[in-house]
C-alpha cells in the first residue's frame, strides 16, 4: 500500500479523495519530506487551474463579506490551523523511548504484537504511543485477539473509561487489489467509519476514538478508499466491553 499512498499525491491535491483517504494521506505527509514538497508544488499548480477560470462575483458579495468580518473575531497567531510536522525534539524522542519501554514491559504479558505495531513505519508513532499509554493508564484496559492466518491477526487494546481502542496488527495481508480494510464502530444508533487500515509490510495500527456508543468494532473489506457505510459482513469484530 506504500507506493499507492504516494501515488495519491495528485488526487489529494485535487481534493479527489474521500475523507478517510485524506486523513491517511495527511498522516503519511507528516513523515515524508519529499511528499510535502511535491504537494506544495502541485497545490500551486492546481491554484493556476482555479485562477484560470476567474470570474467576478456580484458586487453585493463584498458588502456582505465586509459586514461579516466586522462581527467576526480573529484567531490568535498560536497553534497552526493544520497540524504541521512536529520537529523531532529530544523531548519527543524521550517520550517515544519511554513509551517503547512501557510497550516492552506490557508485551511480555500481552504478546508481541504491540511492539511490532509500534515499529510500523513511524507514521504517527508518537501519537500511537501516547494512545497506548493513555489506555494502559486507564485501569480498565483490555486486550483481545482476533483472526487467523487467512484473515490476518489483530489485537485490540481498549479502555471504556479512556473511550478508545487501538487496533494493532503485525501480520495483516494486504487488502486485495481495489479494496481497503475499513474499521467501524457499530452501535445501536449508528455505524460509523473509524478509518481505513492499510497494512505496510503486514503492520498497521489504527486508533478508534469514541467507542462509548459502540457495541462492537468491526472490520470489513470495502472498495478502495472506503465506503460511507459497510457494504460487507465484517471479517472480524471486537466486542466493546
Amino acid at each position, binding site marked *: 500500500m506504500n507506493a*499507492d499512498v504516494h*501515488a*495519491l*499525491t*495528485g*488526487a489529494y*491535491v*485535487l*481534493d*479527489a*479523495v*474521500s475523507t478517510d483517504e485524506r486523513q491517511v494521506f495527511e498522516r503519511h505527509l507528516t513523515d515524508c519530506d519529499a511528499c510535502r514538497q511535491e504537494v*506544495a*508544488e*502541485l*497545490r*500551486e*499548480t*492546481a*491554484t*493556476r*487551474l*482555479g*485562477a*484560470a*477560470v*476567474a*470570474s*467576478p*462575483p*456580484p458586487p453585493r*458579495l*463584498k458588502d*456582505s*463579506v*465586509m459586514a*461579516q*468580518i*466586522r462581527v*467576526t*473575531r*480573529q*484567531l*490568535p*497567531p498560536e*497553534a*497552526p*490551523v493544520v497540524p504541521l510536522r512536529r520537529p523531532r525534539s529530544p523531548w519527543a524522542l524521550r517520550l517515544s523511548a519511554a513509551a517503547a519501554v512501557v510497550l516492552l514491559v506490557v508485551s511480555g504479558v500481552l504478546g508481541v504484537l504491540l511492539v511490532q505495531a509500534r515499529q510500523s513505519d513511524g507514521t504517527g508513532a508518537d501519537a500511537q504511543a501516547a494512545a497506548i499509554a493513555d489506555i494502559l493508564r486507564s485501569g480498565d484496559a483490555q486486550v483481545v485477539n482476533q483472526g487467523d492466518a487467512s484473515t490476518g491477526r489483530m489485537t485490540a487494546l481498549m479502555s471504556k473509561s479512556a473511550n478508545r481502542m487501538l487496533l494493532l496488527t503485525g501480520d495483516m495481508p494486504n487488502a486485495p*487489489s*481495489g479494496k481497503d480494510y475499513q474499521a467501524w464502530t457499530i452501535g445501536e444508533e449508528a455505524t460509523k467509519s473509524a478509518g481505513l487500515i492499510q497494512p505496510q509490510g503486514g503492520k498497521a495500527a489504527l486508533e478508534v476514538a469514541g467507542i462509548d456508543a459502540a457495541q462492537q468494532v468491526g472490520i470489513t473489506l470495502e*472498495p*478502495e*478508499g472506503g465506503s460511507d457505510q459497510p457494504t460487507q459482513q465484517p471479517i472480524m469484530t471486537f466486542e466493546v466491553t
Partner: protein
Amino acid sequence: MGERVRRVREEPGAGPDTAELMRHVARGDESAFERLYDVLIAPIYGAIRRVVRDPAQSEEVAQEVMVELWRTAARYSPERGSVMTFAMTLAHRRAVDRVRSAQAAADREEHVGRREAARPFDEVAEQVTARFEQEQVRRCLGTLTELQRESVVLAYYGGRTYKEVGELLDTPLGTIKTRLRDGLIRLRDCLGVA
C-alpha cells in the same frame, strides 16, 4: 509576450504584495482585508463557481472562504505557499465539500433548471491577468495526454473523486491515480511552477 507572461507567472496574484496585506489583515486591518478581497475574489469565486455551479451557493461558499481568511490570517505563514494558493486550496476544498453533501446535490438539481437560462456573470469581461492566466493554462492543458487532461479536469473543475473519475472514464482506479499525478506534474513543468 514572453516577458509579460513571465511577469504573470511570477506573481499569479499580480498587483499588491498579498503576503504583506495578510500581515496587516492579521492585525485586524479592515482596509487591508478589502484590498486582499479585491485581489483574490475573482479567482476564488470563479473556481468555486466552476465546481458548485449554482450561483447562490457559490456566493455562500466564497463568503465562507473569505471570512475564514480573515479569521485565520494570523496563522498564515508565507513558507507554506502564496496567499493565493492558501486561499485557493481552502476555496476548492470547501467547494468540493459543498457538492459532496447530499443536501447540496439535491439543491443543485433543483436550482440548476431555473438559473441556467440567465447566466449574468459569465459575460462579464475578465481581468487582463486572468486572460493571460487562462491562455497559459489552456495551452499547458493541451500538452497533457487525453486521459491525463480528462482526469484532471473532471477532478478539479468537476469536483469528482478519483473513483468517480474512474467510473466516468471507464478506467481502473490505479491508472486514474497515476494520471492525476502525472498530469499535474506535467502541468507544473509547463506552467513553470518552481
